[in-house]
């Protein structure tokens, strides 16, 4: 027994960058992966951890002194550096019981589908991390692992119900049937719902707004590299740096912003074998049943309104960070507020003006959430040993995901009465949202003339199907043609080869090394 204990302790003490890949290797091998692939997956995970450590430390070393200097000049206390969702996700994945949340998600989804309590089959195994993170938050306040699992479980149930409720709106907004987004960020709609209902009384809020032109104009500012450079140079000037020093900070900030997603990709590469095995298992069991496939939110990202909103909110967030009393977070890597915008897009049916107003009103909630939860993120970074945080410094996430839910439920399980009250109120708010979303008009029919946007996508489809040398087609000569296997992608190019004749078992050894569309 003592030997076993020693072994377990030894393994746990290896540190996250070794220990978690080891678990990954065992799981991947167990899932029937070839040795080469499981070794690669495990190593990639270790590399991802080390890489993220590198970037977060680099970011802190370049940003922190400037933030400190600026805080002094403006009498602020911006000592928490923003690692964004990519940074926090990386730290969270290195948590020792992280992998237990895959089976938890599967089990709850399995039971709810079997009992017909939901129609959503969540195959988004990447966002298991936000369940792990909820667990970490609850554990921090309650010191009780069981409560952590309970709250994570509640979150999973609510996400699946949200998936059911959003599906018809998502189909309307994107034109894609059968998919939904059972994502934690959409639950912020519970807070947005009462505000959005108030906006119904303002006539201009019921008008549509064309966002495509605006997106083209401001799109450049949303680029990670450009945004990093702008924030860097502003921060440099704010800190009273010289021009040359500010420009250097701009490049350093741009570097950190550019590298964050590059490192984060490695996590996805490493985790995909597990994710595939898990979602494959679920799909096998519910094959043939009508379910909504739950995926990550980017299926909504084709909507211009989403990008226009987050980019306009960037300066809003920076200004609030400067003027909100008590705020300690300097927005940086997490400044694109994805934690707000997905819920707002779905709730308002892609009404740009409403999204902007709601974003403006609720930005302080995220900053205060980030301030409040900064010690937890800092603590997590320290205990997992992924990031070095110097004394007097904190690590946070300026657009902290679901601050409302996480605060209320974690504190409720810690036995605080105000939180129990607010949790009950929150759940009632969810029920209201659920009922309302099931009967409210679809986004394309909700506002006076919001048809423009959806017509846009519809028009594309029509173009696609007609484009095929339509002039040559004789309408009297169509009898017996079978379009059953063709698809709309049979578009422009005359060199195009029909995909119908391709046999997927007969491709081996093809080499496209010398091919490209440019002749």
């Amino acid at each position, binding site marked *: 027994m003592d030997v076993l204990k020693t072994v377990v302790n030894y393994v746990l003490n290896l540190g996250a960058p070794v220990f978690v890949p080891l678990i990954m290797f065992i799981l991947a091998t167990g899932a029937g992966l070839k040795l080469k692939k499981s070794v690669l997956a495990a190593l990639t995970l270790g590399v991802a951890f080390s890489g993220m450590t590198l970037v977060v430390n680099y970011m802190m070393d370049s940003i922190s002194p400037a933030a400190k200097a600026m805080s002094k000049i403006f009498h602020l206390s911006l000592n928490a550096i923003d690692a964004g969702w990519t940074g926090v996700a990386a730290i969270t994945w290195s948590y020792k019981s992280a992998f237990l949340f895959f089976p938890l998600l599967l089990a709850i989804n399995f039971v709810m589908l079997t009992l017909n309590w939901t129609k959503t089959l969540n195959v988004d195994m990447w966002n298991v991390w936000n369940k792990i993170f909820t667990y970490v938050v609850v554990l921090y306040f309650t010191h009780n692992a069981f409560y952590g699992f309970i709250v994570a479980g509640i979150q999973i149930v609510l996400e699946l119900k949200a998936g059911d409720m959003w599906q018809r709106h998502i189909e309307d907004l994107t034109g894609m049937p059968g998919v939904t987004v059972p994502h934690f960020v959409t639950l912020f709609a519970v807070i947005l719902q009462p505000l959005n209902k108030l906006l119904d009384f303002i006539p201009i809020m019921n008008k549509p707004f064309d966002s495509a032109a605006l997106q083209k104009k401001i799109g450049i500012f949303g680029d990670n590299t450009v945004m990093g450079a702008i924030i860097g140079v502003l921060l440099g000037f704010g800190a009273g740096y010289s021009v040359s020093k500010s420009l250097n900070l701009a490049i350093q900030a741009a570097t950190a912003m550019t590298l964050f997603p590059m490192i984060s*990709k490695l*996590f996805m*590469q490493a985790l995909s074998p597990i994710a595939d095995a898990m979602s494959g298992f679920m799909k096998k069991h519910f094959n043939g049943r009508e379910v909504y496939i739950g995926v*990550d939110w980017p299926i909504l990202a084709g909507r211009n309104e989403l*990008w226009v909103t987050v980019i306009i909110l960037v300066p809003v967030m920076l200004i609030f960070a400067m003027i909100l009393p008590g705020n300690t977070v300097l927005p940086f890597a997490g400044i694109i507020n994805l934690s707000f915008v997905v819920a707002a897009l779905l709730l308002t049916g892609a009404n740009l003006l409403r999204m902007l107003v709601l974003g403006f009103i609720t930005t302080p909630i995220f900053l205060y959430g980030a301030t409040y939860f900064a010690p937890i993120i800092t603590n997590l970074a320290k205990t997992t040993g992924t990031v070095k945080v110097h004394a007097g410094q904190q690590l946070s996430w300026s657009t902290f995901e679901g601050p409302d839910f996480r605060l209320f439920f974690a504190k409720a399980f810690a036995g605080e009465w105000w939180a129990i009250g607010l949790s009950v109120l929150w759940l009632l708010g969810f029920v209201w949202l659920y009922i309302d979303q099931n009967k409210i008009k679809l986004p394309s029919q909700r506002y006076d003339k919001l048809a423009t946007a959806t017509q846009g996508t519809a028009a594309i489809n029509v173009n696609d199907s007609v484009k095929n040398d339509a002039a040559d087609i004789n309408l009297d000569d169509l009898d017996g043609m079978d379009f059953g296997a063709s698809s709309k992608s049979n578009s422009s190019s005359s060199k195009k080869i029909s995909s119908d004749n391709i046999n997927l078992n007969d491709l081996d050894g093809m080499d496209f090394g010398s091919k490209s*569309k440019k002749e």
Partner: protein
Amino acid sequence: MAKIIVACGSGVASSELVVKHISDFFEDHGITGVDVEATDFKKLPDILASYDIYVWIARPSEQIQTIVDENNITSVNGLPIFTGQNPEVSYKEIISGLKGLSA
């Protein structure tokens, strides 16, 4: 070298998952000479023109569709790969797009 691009919100999770699946598919079939990359939607309009095939998981906006049309890019619905429902449909379209490229 044929080049395929997949886009999502941050170029991290969803697009990378689809990239991984496409790469695995190519590897399983011994298909070589294809670069598969992930990016985010904010960057996409600036870089899309240099790719041969665009695999989308969010319906292309008018701006993206224009770039696709003007540059003779094959656009493929990647949702079947993303959701895991009949991914063969997307793979076939990708292969047909690749075969249509000139040497």
